[in-house]
């Protein structure tokens, strides 16, 4: 159970992510929201990051009418991205922090893409094409088909776009945002009187 300030922070940041996601819908919408999930997860820890990813997607989906069988994949995908950010090593200097976060941003962008594609792959291809999942084939062959599908469906381009925007946002706003989030963390503790 979080204290009230963490819950409020979760709500406000999720609102921010949803609005940004709505504003940017169509032009790499989701991607801009990724940076904040990663940065907040990094500062406030894995649990916060997980919940922020989860609540952000749920809030924007409920508002835009995006509830469907794909939602659990988006929810868990974004939540895991935030969770992973919270588990990153707590490095000291700014350069190492930003480098660590950027590397993680690239990895998690592709991870999220693969996670979502794993769901769309059998649906878009249907059975019996040379790209389809087939239970008769070996794991290696299926992975090969999966990668072909990723390339052909344009998923990789999309993921790369996501990686670039997230890294760019972390590179230019990361330092200021981490400072701001850290201030919030200390102020939240500071304001608590018992």
């Amino acid at each position, binding site marked *: 159970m979080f204290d009230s300030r963490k819950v409020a922070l979760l709500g406000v940041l999720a609102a921010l992510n949803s609005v940004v996601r709505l504003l940017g819908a169509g032009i790499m919408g989701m991607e801009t929201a990724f940076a904040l999930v990663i940065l907040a997860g990094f500062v406030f820890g894995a649990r916060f990051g997980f919940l922020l990813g989860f609540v952000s997607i749920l809030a924007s989906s409920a508002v835009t*009418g995006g509830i469907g069988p794909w939602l659990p994949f988006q929810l868990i995908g974004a939540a895991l991205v935030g969770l992973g950010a919270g588990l990153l090593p707590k490095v000291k200097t700014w350069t190492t922090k930003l480098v660590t976060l950027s590397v993680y941003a690239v990895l998690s962008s592709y991870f999220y893409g693969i996670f979502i594609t794993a769901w769309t792959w059998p649906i878009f291809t249907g059975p*019996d094409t040379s790209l389809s999942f087939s239970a008769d084939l070996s794991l290696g062959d299926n992975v090969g088909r999966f990668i072909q599908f990723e390339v052909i469906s344009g998923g990789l381009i999309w993921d790369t776009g996501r990686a670039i925007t997230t890294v760019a946002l972390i590179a230019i706003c990361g330092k200021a945002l981490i400072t701001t989030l850290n201030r919030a963390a200390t102020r939240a503790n500071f304001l608590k009187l018992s």
Partner: protein
Amino acid sequence: MTNSRIKILKQYLWLALFVVLVRVLFRVFFGDLSGSAFWAALEGGARLAFWVIGFGVLNAFIDFKKVFRRTPKIFRTPLTALNIAFALMPEVSRSIERVRYAAKLRAHRKGLRWVQSVVVPVVSNGIDQALNLGESMEARGFGKAETSSTETPSLLLDNVSFGFEGRSNLLHNLTLKVVPGELTLITGNTGSGKSTLLKLIQAKNPGSAYVNQFPREGFLAETVFDELAFSLLQKRLPTAEVNARVTRTSERFDLGSYLKADPQTLSAGWQQRLAIAAALISDSKLLLLDEPFSALDGHGVAKLNELLNELKENGLAIVVVEHRTELLQKLANHTFVLDFGRLSMGLPKVQKLTSLPQKSATVILGDNGSGKTTFLRTIATTRGVLVPQPASDLLFLNTVLEELRQSDQDAKVKPGTTAELFTKFVNVDLENQNPRDLSQGQKLALAISIQLAKATELLMLDEPTLGFDLPSRQTLANLIGTITESGTRVLVATHDLEFANAISKDIRALETVSVTDV
């Protein structure tokens, strides 16, 4: 609603079509091309499309926001956060719009720099709001066991000392008693620990009603009704009782006609009223108010005084922390001054703003929400520079020094120009500080320096004294004096009459001026 239903349905129809097309295309390019296989693909696609349309109908006709609004019993953290997110989305959009405008006021940036100048202030504003919101939730019983007490505590503090870890004590051996039906006023200079004292009283007296300095930032619901109900829902009261109590309270506070309104869109006076009503809904007998007058205009001040008087007559014990003591002189039964961590009885001498010797600024006077901001924005499209409210919307870099250098670059002036202005206004060395750590007055001074570096003939300030205490207002008045002396015209839009009188002989009511007059 119907409009968005149609929009959602349309989206899903396109998605369904897209799915069929994709299925068929994959079959055509990567499968065998016999006729029957083609039809099989089409049939599979159609079946998928059927599901897609099904979910479209579901989304169009079910308001999922309502589904998630049920009183959370499990998953309380994410569901509460989710509902806060729903409620604050419009507010966040407004904040983004405001900051985008502020960014444009400062300089026409492009690309990543522009992104930075918007993202950083928006997130910082959000975090400040979240901290105030968390405080308001805590005061209204979030995450606490049953703490409602409907008896008036008489001894609020009994020989209590307090300090933050690693610092010397801020408050020493304080004892404070109250009587039902009486108002206790506590005053003291900025930084004397007034607000801390009030929080301490709140912590020591569980069940007391507490409203902090920024009622607007303590709202978390989409409607006034839900805002009032929050504290009752935390106690898991049955729906019928919640409804009955919300109705009763809304009648008592004249909020009946606003029950469906968004709390964020009410005027400052009504927001203050709502915050007090929401805090008192659990029938608390002790009301604690932190600087309740700071955002109110003349009309709001009168209404709040009326309300406090009524509450006193109903037998509430009220403690108010306020630096503008003159506003409560009639209502206060006891006045204490907090100085160096000790409380002493008696009124401080009434402090007033000292007028400038040369009152050459122009003031546009208007109540909150009367259109002052729009007025200034209109002028700013053709001439002058504008410092928006809040001025911190302009600041986005990590240190004061970076802000000053960026400003020189933006204004294309020789390095050091902005810094020179800034040191003229603020005579402490702040260059390595984070702009967001500065005091309100220092932030405003920095924003003014940045805008003035553009060598303008007209400086416009939007509600510059909002949330300022007396010393900061005095400093600002003097600063405006310095600027007018150097030959720049200053135009201030405010509701603060005392401040207006201190800086200007040329005070005009908003309704009587047109953009071309000033």
